[in-house]
């Protein structure tokens, strides 16, 4: 009995992975065949990009501030508080800017995509769209995927910038250090590989957030309760996958740049 349960669960997991892979691939490839819904792409870019700006600015700023507080406490033991700028900028640009923004946008937008599309499924709006001769994948999913990929790139840059400013604010106001030294140190130690690392990640994270949010939304069953389940699955799975993919990309890029 236990073996049958394990077998059934394993088959279900494989089936979900297969369905997700086909779904995500189709969502991506739809951009290369008409019709392409540019208006929906712009609308989603506004919702995802501009709408997420406040949370990204706030989380970026305070994360930078916390990094500066924590690092200066440790660095002061070695008399190296002058490198706080380098520490904050490298950590934000290489890692935290992309990951934090990804998780913030996942919480905000993967959930909204799953619940919006899920509600449309349970109220037969998706079936109505198909009956009217419109492909919901092209109309609803593909614009969301590309809008999230592109907007997450810019949101990550904003988070990086505000993170460095948050670190500067703490360094100058609380730690009473020189601001010019902070920014000079932050800038001088940045290299192209650091920036490439920071800008490649949001492209993958954006794809994960939108494809998972839409995937769980479109396969919603079970009425309003099902919408709730889809929303939870979308946020949890996209957040975990972001961290896992972050690990893989970091490992690959570090090996690539070090060689």
């Amino acid at each position, binding site marked *: 009995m236990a073996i049958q349960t394990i077998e059934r669960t394993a088959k279900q997991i494989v089936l979900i992975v297969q369905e997700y892979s086909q779904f995500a691939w189709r969502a991506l490839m739809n951009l290369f065949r008409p019709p392409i819904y540019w208006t929906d792409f712009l609308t989603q870019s506004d919702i995802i990009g501009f709408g997420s700006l406040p949370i990204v600015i706030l989380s970026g700023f305070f994360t930078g501030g916390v990094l500066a507080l924590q690092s200066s406490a440790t660095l002061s033991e070695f008399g190296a508080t002058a490198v706080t700028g380098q520490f904050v900028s490298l950590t934000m640009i290489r890692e935290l800017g992309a990951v934090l923004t990804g998780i913030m946008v996942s919480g905000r937008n993967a959930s909204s995509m799953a619940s919006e599309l899920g509600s449309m499924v349970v109220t037969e709006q998706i079936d109505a769209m198909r*009956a009217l001769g419109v492909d919901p994948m092209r109309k609803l999913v593909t614009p969301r995927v590309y809008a999230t990929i592109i907007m997450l790139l810019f949101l990550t840059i904003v988070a990086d910038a505000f993170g460095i400013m948050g670190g500067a604010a703490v360094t100058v106001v609380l730690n009473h250090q020189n601001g010019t030294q902070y920014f000079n140190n932050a800038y001088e130690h940045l290299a192209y590989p650091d920036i490439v690392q920071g800008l490649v990640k949001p492209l993958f994270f954006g794809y994960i957030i939108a494809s998972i949010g839409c995937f769980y939304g479109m396969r919603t069953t079970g009425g309003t309760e099902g919408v709730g389940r889809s929303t939870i699955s979308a946020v949890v799975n996209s957040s975990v996958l972001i961290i896992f993919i972050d690990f893989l990309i970091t490992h690959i890029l570090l090996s690539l740049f070090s060689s």
Partner: protein
Amino acid sequence: MSQATVSMPELPPPEGGPVVALRNVAVGFDGPPVIENVSFSVAPAETRILLGPAGVGKSVLLKLILGLLRPLEGSVELFGEDISQMPEEKLFSLRARAGMVFQEGALFDSLTVRDNVAYQLIQEGVHDEEIDARVRDALRFVGLEETFNLFPSSLSGGMRRRVAIARALINQPELILYDSPTGGLDPVTSNTIIELIVKQRDVRATPSLLVTHRLQDAFTLCTHRFSSEQGRMVPLPEGQINHNTTFLMLDEGHLIFDGSLHELVHSDNPFVREFLE
């Protein structure tokens, strides 16, 4: 009940092959089939009424006809093409030739009535002026011209169904599928909806399949016609029925009746008798 031929000048005589044909169709969802060995067709200018208790798979059959669901067995023909194995991408152009009214209307919440009704036209890139004119025509047909700029959330259940009918009719479909269009509505509103269906049948002669579990609606469709002169639905003379309106009955996933009103009311099938009584 006696039968007599009704003179209906607006209705062209049925010609050509069936608009819809299901042959030995079975449908299932992760379990035993919910529909088995179902075969029937809808001829041009024909209105078929699919009767049956709730939960026997009537709505499933409608979705099957538009390719929204796939059969486990058998074949489904729409406009002469077998769609049972047709890829989703090829189905969109066929679906666009049909109109479907969903059980609860299935209007898009985030769009106004105008954009809901014009949805297909907007996707086709029709000019705004033409869209506005055609939407107003469609809304006038269902008697809801004043709702043009409203959102679906501000409409009553009956109004939502009528907007859904306007959306299904705007592109002059070659087939209309009505999924319980009067379900959950009061008798007056139900009668308004049935009048619209009769109007569409008699004025435009569009073939249709109507799912319902309300016998009263089904009989009204058979015993009434739309009078263009009076602008409303009127009863046919005593003893006359509309011969282009026929019945199907589904029970426990099987088609147990396919025939005219006369055959229905004289059927010996115990379930049909029980349903009618």
